């Protein structure tokens, strides 16, 4: 049997586990946790076998499709990109589920928790292996729904309910853009086929989309007097979807608030599922971006800006999970920036970006689970009340240190020594340098290198505040049970070693995504359509450039060490309400005021909604109510005709016959 034949089980097993756990979880051991764990474990094994098979036989990309309705299909496409993502998602999700047995031990609604996380994982796996964009969108929405349910898991807390709503509504903005992109894509392709679609051709299949790029690149539309290519429009709308899901500026606001759910949910959202969906969407449809003029530049700038912008806010947060949340936003910025660098390096961009995505999944899941372990121990999320936990929680402290080093990107250039974050983040910064050298546009590179410095500062600030110094907590901290620490150690091993072992083969493997038995594209040709001038050869950067990311990382560590460990200057003087810079950062650039209070509340709600509401109530409602009243009273009158007396019924039949003849006669006369 071919392993590809059971690929459909990958999302199906967790989905089934969802159903069973939801209904029967209460009666099972540990709230039914074992069932999702088993299902996701099986998904992981299948994904891993597929990946290994693909590594050995690159031409065995799995593609299955069945007709759905009209010109749509349901299908599975597992190429290198999807295979790697499937393996990562199922693996990280598996570890988080195991850890959650310990973390959620005392929660009464465990069955609901495990059912929902299982569905969340299933939806994400579905996003990854879809072979057409419509199916992907359906799973994409399912991911959004699950995030809503899980962020608001403790819905009794008003803040959790609000955060869930915020996440749902903010990502919805992106989802609408994504849907609009799909609609425009479909309409354009329909036009490209002149409305005659041959049997067996499914317009929204990725392979068919890529084949039509040539036809689409000729189409343009005029928007606000600007001539915009359909491809650019579609690509940017897709990217809009990614901005929402992957928390890029300006739709990143939901992500830090999404901390209201259980920490394991945060880990799942930030590492394995949800936020990576956006990056994956861009990587999946990368050929369209490559053929769309200017699209990749927008991607690069948004990504670079987000990386820096979020890192500045990470510097001043006191809630341990919020620091990590801004760190996620910032790291996602890196990934998006990496994708944008495709403008210079072509397909290699997918390689470096997805490589960072995978490594980030390991160390960010680790960071969150460590944070969860700390919160579990001290019962607060405020770092000002922690400190000195290193002695009480050695395993957590060491694994947290490894994760921090990986996030900051410690390693020695030119050797195989380094954390996984070092290899992947460096690769992105390096491509940004190549891009700068090639186009003389240095902005992405500057964003990237500054963000690297800030990353190192905020993560070690977090580390020193939590684990070093004197204890500021009232409760006696203790190490977490082994069901929680074992996943930490596994993730730590991956954070430490994965990058060094796999970087070269990984990036080569990714490049086969668009060069295999299912999809085979001429990348140079696509780049010419998009007016991108690709670099043919690179890898001879000056030594200083290779070392610079490490230098800034070390500098960040030193700064944090001096400020938060040695405390050479009194931080409280800087950190005060009088300092305008601090105030700006601490209030998160007043985003809440601008976006929520001004834009959402004042403008949209008070001005537009309320006036629409007035119109609706006074005008539309009275029409609707009136219609309803008239209809109901007509119904009351008409039901009296139904007397129950059979003579009346017979009369009605005969009268009906007579009336019909009269009616027909009339028509005959008139015509």
């Amino acid at each position, binding site marked *: 049997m071919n392993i590809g034949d059971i690929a459909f089980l990958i999302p199906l097993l967790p989905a089934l586990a969802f159903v069973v756990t939801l209904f029967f979880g209460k009666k099972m051991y540990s709230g039914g946790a074992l069932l999702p764990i088993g299902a996701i474990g099986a998904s992981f094994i299948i994904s891993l076998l597929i990946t290994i098979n693909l590594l050995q036989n690159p031409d065995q990309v799995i593609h299955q499709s069945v007709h759905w309705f009209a010109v749509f299909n349901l299908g599975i496409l597992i190429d290198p990109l999807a295979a790697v993502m499937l393996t990562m998602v199922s693996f990280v999700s598996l570890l988080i589920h195991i850890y959650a047995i310990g973390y959620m031990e005392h929660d009464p609604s465990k069955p609901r928790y495990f059912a929902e996380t299982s569905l969340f994982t299933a939806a994400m796996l579905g996003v990854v292996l879809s072979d057409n964009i419509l199916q992907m969108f359906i799973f994409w929405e399912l991911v959004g729904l699950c995030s809503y349910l899980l962020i608001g898991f403790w819905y009794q807390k008003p803040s959790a309910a609000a955060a869930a709503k915020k996440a749902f509504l903010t990502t919805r903005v992106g989802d609408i853009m994504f849907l609009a992109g799909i609609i425009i894509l479909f309409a354009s392709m329909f036009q490209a086929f002149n409305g005659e679609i041959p049997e067996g051709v499914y317009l929204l299949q990725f392979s068919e989309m890529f084949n039509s790029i040539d036809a689409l690149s000729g189409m343009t539309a005029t928007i606000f007097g600007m001539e915009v290519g359909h491809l650019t429009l579609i690509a940017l709308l897709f990217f809009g979807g990614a901005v929402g899901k992957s928390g890029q500026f300006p739709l990143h606001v939901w992500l830090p608030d999404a901390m209201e759910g259980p920490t394991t949910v945060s880990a799942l959202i930030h590492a394995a599922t949800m936020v990576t969906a956006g990056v994956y969407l861009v990587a999946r449809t990368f050929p369209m971006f490559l053929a769309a003029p200017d699209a990749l530049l927008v991607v690069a700038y948004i990504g670079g800006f987000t990386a820096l912008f979020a890192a500045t806010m990470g510097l001043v947060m006191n809630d341990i999970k919020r620091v990590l949340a801004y760190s996620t936003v910032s790291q996602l910025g890196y990934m998006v920036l990496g994708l944008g660098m495709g403008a210079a390096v072509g397909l290699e961009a997918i390689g470096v970006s997805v490589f960072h995505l995978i490594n980030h999944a390991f160390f960010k899941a680790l960071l969150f689970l460590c944070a969860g372990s700390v919160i579990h121990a001290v019962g607060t999320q405020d770092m000002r009340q922690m400190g000195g936990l290193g002695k009480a929680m050695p395993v957590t402290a060491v694994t947290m240190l490894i994760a921090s080093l990986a996030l900051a990107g410690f390693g020695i250039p030119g050797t195989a020594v380094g954390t996984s974050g070092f290899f992947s983040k460096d690769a992105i910064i390096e491509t940004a340098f190549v891009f700068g050298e090639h186009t003389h546009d240095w902005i992405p590179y500057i964003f990237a290198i500054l963000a690297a410095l800030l990353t190192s500062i905020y993560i070690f600030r977090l580390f020193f505040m939590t684990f070093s110094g004197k204890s500021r907590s009232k409760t006696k901290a203790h190490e977490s049970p082994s069901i929680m620490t074992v996943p930490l150690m596994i993730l730590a091993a991956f954070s430490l070693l994965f990058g060094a072992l796999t970087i070269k083969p990984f990036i080569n493997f990714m490049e086969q995504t668009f060069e295999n038995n299912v999809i085979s594209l001429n990348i140079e040709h696509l780049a010419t359509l998009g007016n991108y001038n690709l670099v043919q050869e690179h890898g001879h950067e000056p030594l200083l450039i290779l070392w610079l990311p490490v230098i800034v990382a070390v500098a960040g560590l030193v700064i944090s060490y001096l400020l938060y460990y040695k405390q050479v200057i009194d931080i409280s003087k800087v950190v005060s309400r009088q300092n305008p810079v601090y105030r700006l950062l601490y209030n998160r650039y007043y985003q809440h005021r601008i976006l929520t209070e001004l834009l959402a509340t004042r403008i949209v709600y008070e001005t537009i909604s309320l006036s629409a509401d007035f119109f609706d109530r006074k005008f539309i409602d009275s029409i609707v109510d009136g219609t309803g009243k008239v209809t109901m009273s007509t119904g009351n009158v008409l039901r009296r005709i*139904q007397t129950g007396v059979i003579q009346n*019924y017979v009369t*009605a039949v005969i*009268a*009906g016959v007579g009336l019909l003849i009269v009616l027909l006669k009339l028509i005959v006369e008139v015509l």
Partner: protein
Amino acid sequence: MENILLFSPEIILAVTAIVVLFTGLFLKTEHKSVLGYIAVAGVIISMALTLSIMLSMTTASMFYGTMVIDSLSQLFKLIFLSVALLVSIASIKYVSGSRNTEEFYSLMLLAVIGMMVVSSSNDLITLFVGFELAGLATYALVGFEKKNIVLLEASMKYFIIGALSSALILFGMSYVYGMTGTTSIPGIAENASLLAESPIGLAAVVLLIAGFGYKMALVPFHMWAPDTYQGASPVISALLAGASKKMGFIAAFKVIIVALIALSADWRTIFAVLAVITMTLGNVVALTQTSVKRMLAYSSVAQAGYIAMAFVVLTPTALAGGILYIMSHAFMKAGAFIAVGIVGFMVLLGNREARNVDHIDNFKGLAKRMPLTAFSLMVFLFALAGIPATAGFVSKFVLFASTIEAGLVWLAVIAILNSAISLFYYARVVKYMYFMPAEGGRVSEPAPFAVAMIIALAAVLIIGIWPEPFIYWATEAAKVLLI
């Protein structure tokens, strides 16, 4: 060479009916539930045979051209048999403990045979005979509980209007025969110009529409339907709404569309008027009903109005849409009636003397008391309203889209507005089931009812989610109508 095996489904049913009748004579009352299983087995075998004939795309004309086998006839037979399957499974519970079980099942099987003869007939005489066979059997079935005065009244009304309608049909047929000199449906179509030139043709068309309109429950020939559906037991209502009513449609398809196509200008106008009146009146009156069964009866009238649009539009897609609608409606309505039957069972379990068991108050908090029934009924009701992912949406979509395509936008608008009205009374039941507090504890559904309901639920969802094969077969069947 005529291959009699093509009628093996009917023969099997007839044999089953006789076997059930005679076995019943020798069984004690408490053992009679076995008869239900025999009937179910007969229906299933018959379904399998019908399906195999349909899939082999056999066409044949037999018995001197009075009977035909084609995709249209086979598809309708499958619809009738599916409803018969649901009804006979559900009836295992309904007639348990009755002394006359064997009569119930053999009558039901005979009714189905009658319907199957109608769908295969190619001649006015065979068609009428089948029509009457189904009619007579169902009259008796409605009055099955001889001591229940409500049932007897329902049966009586049904019978009297039925007899009147049979008279109208015969009257119409005699005009047709008189003008064209033949009773063969293709023969009439050939000579229809004779009819079209004479005012008698008009009279014939009107009489036939009135006669078939009674089975289809088109306003104003519908008045028996609410009383009968409400009075009869839910399983019989399911048979009437799901199958017997569809026999009216297939008969009208054959006699009016195929035979009298030459007069289409006239009868299209009639159907346009009837369709609009029927759907509007059905929906508007359904709004104010407090009996769920009566509400379903009016909804059934309204749905007949939608299906009648196929006569007006008369394009291949519209006919396919109409046939698809007939198919979906058979499952949605039969399922809904069975679900209501389960609720009635639940109420009677609490209080043997309860009256008005189908009153909407009895549906309060059903989601807590019988989650499976509540969920299924919700799906059936939403399907009737035409919510996506159900069979009702697909069939409404095909039918309404074809109406717009044919340029009859006004008709489509009226139909869509009607659908919007209908959502109100369907959703009201859902509100009662899900958002009102339960009165009474958890009750588990009797297995036969539950099995029948789940089959109908599966059919409604399968057609809704994977409509392609069903649309394909409906299109194939529609091709037969418009040669």
